[in-house]
């Protein structure tokens, strides 16, 4: 049967079709290659643009001086980024400190404890929570968290505060990123082979011992990535801090103090002051700083992850 069909017949009769298939193949491969390089090109373009636009500022002030000065007063042409940098660091660390343990615990609950309907229900709840736009969290926080912090929490720890500030932003951002970290952590816990659990339980470990010594390590690189992505979102968070941080360009002196983050600097001043060349340049430089930090962070994280993966392979 196969040998009765002459190959030349077949290909000859359809050479037109073959030619057009091959043409489509060629054209599509150019397109795909273009798309492949797009990611790099986009990144390059963003960095170049931001650098170029930052030049007016950088030609007038020294970077070191700006990064270490706490005077921020565009009207007086004073561009000290330190308060916003410190604010960003505070918010990031505080949010992650609040969100990460909860996220990992909840992920463990979903992956290791919950069963059946409860499990489906809880994980869909988390999915929904992860998809709620952060501006809504900000809005709800304005009527729930702000009064709570201002009227109860801050006075309780002997701080007079307005409810706005570092702590409030951190709390709300922790709520924003937690579901996100949970989903990803659950994924990496669930992708672990059951043999790991059986091996550990099979020598008489309790579930907690199994989780602590085996599962959290084995899923470690995945959980690390989840936390990292959460970190990225907190670090670059814009709307929630803009609504809740209290916009004070000063180095915060307590948890409940108001402050400023790098993104809120942009939101608060860009629309009003972008027609002033130097201020515009300064705010674009803030964007550049954000990108560079994210970049450095990603690189070190990649390295750490590789190490973890090797150390905790199974």
């Amino acid at each position, binding site marked *: 049967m196969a040998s009765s069909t002459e190959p030349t017949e077949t290909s000859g009769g359809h050479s037109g079709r073959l030619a057009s298939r091959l043409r489509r193949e060629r054209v599509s491969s150019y397109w795909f290659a273009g798309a492949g390089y797009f990611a790099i090109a986009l990144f390059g373009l963003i960095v170049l643009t931001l650098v170029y636009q930052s030049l007016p500022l950088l030609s007038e002030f020294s970077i070191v001086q700006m990064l270490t000065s706490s005077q921020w007063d565009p009207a007086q042409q004073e561009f000290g980024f330190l308060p916003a940098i410190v604010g960003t660091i505070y918010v990031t660390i505080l949010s992650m400190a609040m969100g990460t343990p909860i996220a990992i615990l909840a992920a463990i609950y979903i992956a290791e404890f919950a069963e059946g309907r409860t499990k489906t229900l809880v994980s869909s709840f988390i999915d929904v929570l992860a998809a709620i736009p952060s501006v809504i969290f900000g809005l709800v926080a304005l009527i729930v968290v702000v009064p709570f912090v201002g009227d109860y929490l801050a006075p309780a720890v002997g701080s007079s505060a307005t409810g706005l500030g570092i702590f409030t932003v951190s709390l709300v951002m922790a709520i924003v990123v937690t579901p996100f970290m949970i989903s990803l952590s659950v994924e990496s816990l669930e992708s672990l082979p059951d043999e790991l*659990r059986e091996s550990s339980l099979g020598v008489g470990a309790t579930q907690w011992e199994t989780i602590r010594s085996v599962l959290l390590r084995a899923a470690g690189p995945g959980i690390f990535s989840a936390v990292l992505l959460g970190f990225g979102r907190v670090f670059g968070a814009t709307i929630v801090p803009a609504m809740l941080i209290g916009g004070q360009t000063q180095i915060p002196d307590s948890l409940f103090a108001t402050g400023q983050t790098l993104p809120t600097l942009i939101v608060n001043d860009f629309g009003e002051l972008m027609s002033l060349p130097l201020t515009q340049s300064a705010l674009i430089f803030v964007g550049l700083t954000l990108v560079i930090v994210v970049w450095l962070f990603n690189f070190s994280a990649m390295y750490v992850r590789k190490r973890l993966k090797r150390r905790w*392979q199974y």
Partner: protein
Amino acid sequence: MTDAALTTDTLAVTYTGNRRVEAVKGVSLEFPRNQLTAIIGPSGCGKSTLLKSLNRLHEIQPNVEISGDVTLNGRSVYDTDDPIPEIRKRIGYVPQEPTPLPLSIYENVAYGLRIHGEFESDADLDDRVERYLRKVNLWEEVEDRLDAPGAELSRGQIQRLCLARSLAVEPEVLLCDEVTSALDPVSAETVEETLADLKSEYTIVMVTHSMDQARRLADEIVFLYLGEVVETNDATSFFENPQAERTKEFVAGHGVAVPDDSDDEQSEKPSVTPEQ
């Protein structure tokens, strides 16, 4: 058969997930002390389920129901106030897939010891780790890299590491589920040799799909079919002189017990009642 370390009494296990699967249907068995019992039977007949229910390891899955009982040295494993981890310490388990814990080679073996606090000093721990690594014939191969991750060993080495890890907590019974089937033939052989060395000292229950392996290693054979015990006998009698018709077929067919006619994969499985 009076010196049975482990016995089951009309043990039945049913999966109650999407569809109801009666994986093990009222099995009563005795596993003699310091002997190696091999459970054989076609794929899906309930071997793994039976094995895991012996130390309650099936309970980590959702939707499983169990009835009947298992007794270890005369004490029930199910009707007891002992915490489950204590039971599992006494009845160890080694899974099919060679599975290093995400720890160093040393810590893999020390894992159970640390959990149960079963060592006097660091030196004592070192001693024990060495002892069990020697017992599984692994010590020479790893003594100079005890701090390397367990996963960096070859699969055959890992499987022996798993045996050492299980032995280190000094279980009374060791359950092994097809511990060589994920290995290449050469590695399988070394693991098999290790099991042969161990069987005089331990009560071992092993699942295997290889008739040859059962023949080479086992003292006792349990032939399971569709969740029921078709025949159980000492190894020699079992292979030389099988009693049941099924057994004859199965032994002759080199492990492939072909039921009915259809090729749908379900037909090879135990009775299945779709639920919805």
